């Protein structure tokens, strides 16, 4: 599968900015840098869109524009939390009004598939439209759905994206569960001291994928695999080795490994063991200090890897060990809460 175009809205303004001087955030929370939506979306439609919908729709439109394809054969989105803010609004109103009055717009737009639906409405696209909600596998499930369509030749190109938002309420609730660091000087110090909790994040990343090369692709997604609750780092190590063996990939053929290290001692212990045992002496990189942790953060990693391959450079700010200036093949290994593990193998076109 070929990544014909990639676009995203994240706490970082652009890949170029990540290369030159990534935005550093104080504290334990990263928020997306939002563009001027009126340049992308009809203002009459914007008024009804919550922040996550605007982010998703704008990223999708940017991606389509970059690909030169106006009408995709399918639109597939992956999101774990869906339109949280709208859900909060209508649930709060229900309580405030003693279940007597709902806010129609927030209620209608609170469903997980609103972003995919809004993209279709804007494009007047009546093609296949699906939203996958699978917690830490939401984006991977969307990609697998896209792969199925391409392999079955039911679509020539698919617009696929991963989106999740962080709201004040979700941040407060997840903080109470101990998900985020209690004290963190800034986003760059995330990995310096291993502690309980990570850094909160959000983002929207979209890709135009096709089964055939276009001649101007960002990258080729050679393989993707997921495994759930592998049962310890040894089993995880075995899964990764099996993945590489099954696809005939030797370790020396991988130039860069991007892992989902997030500063949480419990989560990073898995990465540490895998890096020592499987990726020893490999150039490794990390990305959660740029986008934060969220269930579809792997979509940001894919966006980042696709740009590294397209631009033939690795931003210095993501390198963790080794040096890899112009990678030709990248492996992404990310896990969400040590339950949802995903592997992506990409190569330059």
């Amino acid at each position, binding site marked *: 599968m070929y990544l014909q175009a990639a676009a995203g809205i994240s706490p970082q303004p652009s890949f170029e900015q990540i290369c030159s001087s990534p935005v550093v955030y104080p504290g334990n929370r990263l928020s997306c840098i939002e563009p001027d939506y009126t340049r992308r979306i009809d*203002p009459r439609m914007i*008024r009804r869109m919550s922040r996550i919908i605007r982010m998703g729709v704008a990223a999708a439109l940017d991606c389509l524009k970059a690909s030169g394809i106006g009408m995709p054969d399918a639109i597939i989105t992956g999101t774990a939390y869906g339109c949280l803010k709208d859900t909060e609004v209508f649930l709060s109103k229900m309580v405030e*009004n003693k279940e007597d009055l709902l806010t129609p717009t927030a209620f209608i737009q609170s469903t997980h598939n609103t972003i995919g639906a809004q993209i279709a409405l804007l494009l007047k696209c009546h093609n296949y439209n699906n939203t996958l909600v699978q917690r830490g596998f939401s984006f991977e499930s969307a990609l697998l759905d896209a792969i199925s369509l391409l392999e079955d030749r039911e679509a020539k190109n698919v617009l696929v994206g991963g989106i999740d938002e962080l709201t004040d309420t979700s941040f407060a609730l997840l903080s109470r569960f101990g998900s985020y660091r209690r004290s963190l000087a800034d986003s760059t110090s995330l990995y310096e001291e291993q502690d309980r909790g990570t850094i909160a994040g959000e983002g929207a990343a979209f890709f135009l994928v096709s089964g055939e090369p276009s001649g101007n692709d960002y990258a080729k997604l050679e393989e993707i695999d997921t495994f759930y609750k592998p049962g310890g780092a040894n089993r995880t190590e075995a899964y990764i080795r099996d993945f590489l063996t099954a696809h005939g990939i030797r370790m020396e053929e991988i130039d860069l490994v991007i892992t989902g290290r997030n500063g949480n001692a419990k989560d990073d212990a898995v990465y540490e063991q895998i890096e020592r045992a499987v990726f020893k002496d490999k150039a490794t990189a990390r990305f959660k200090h740029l986008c934060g942790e969220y269930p579809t953060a792997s979509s940001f990693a894919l966006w980042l890897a696709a740009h590294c391959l397209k631009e033939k450079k690795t931003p210095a700010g993501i390198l963790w060990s080794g040096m890899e200036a112009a990678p030709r093949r990248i492996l992404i290994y990310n896990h969400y809460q040590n339950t949802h593990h995903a592997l992506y193998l990409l190569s330059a076109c």
Partner: protein
Amino acid sequence: MADLKKQIIAQLNLKNLEPDNIGDDQPLFNEGLGLDSIDALELIVLLQQDYKIKLTNAEEGQQVFRSVRTMAQYIMDHQPGSK
């Protein structure tokens, strides 16, 4: 009517509009402000929430929500103690 216009703008999130941009007799739907059926639901909520007026007859809505003036009139006619 200026207050009602402000409430409509807030309820429908019409960020690009000021109360002065809405004419008293300008149609709210179709060729006027261009509101749609979801906005109609929001206006029903506005009446109930801010004025404690429950619009029970759907057909009545077409007349009530024709313009800001018709809405204001309906509110005045149905305010507690107006009859």
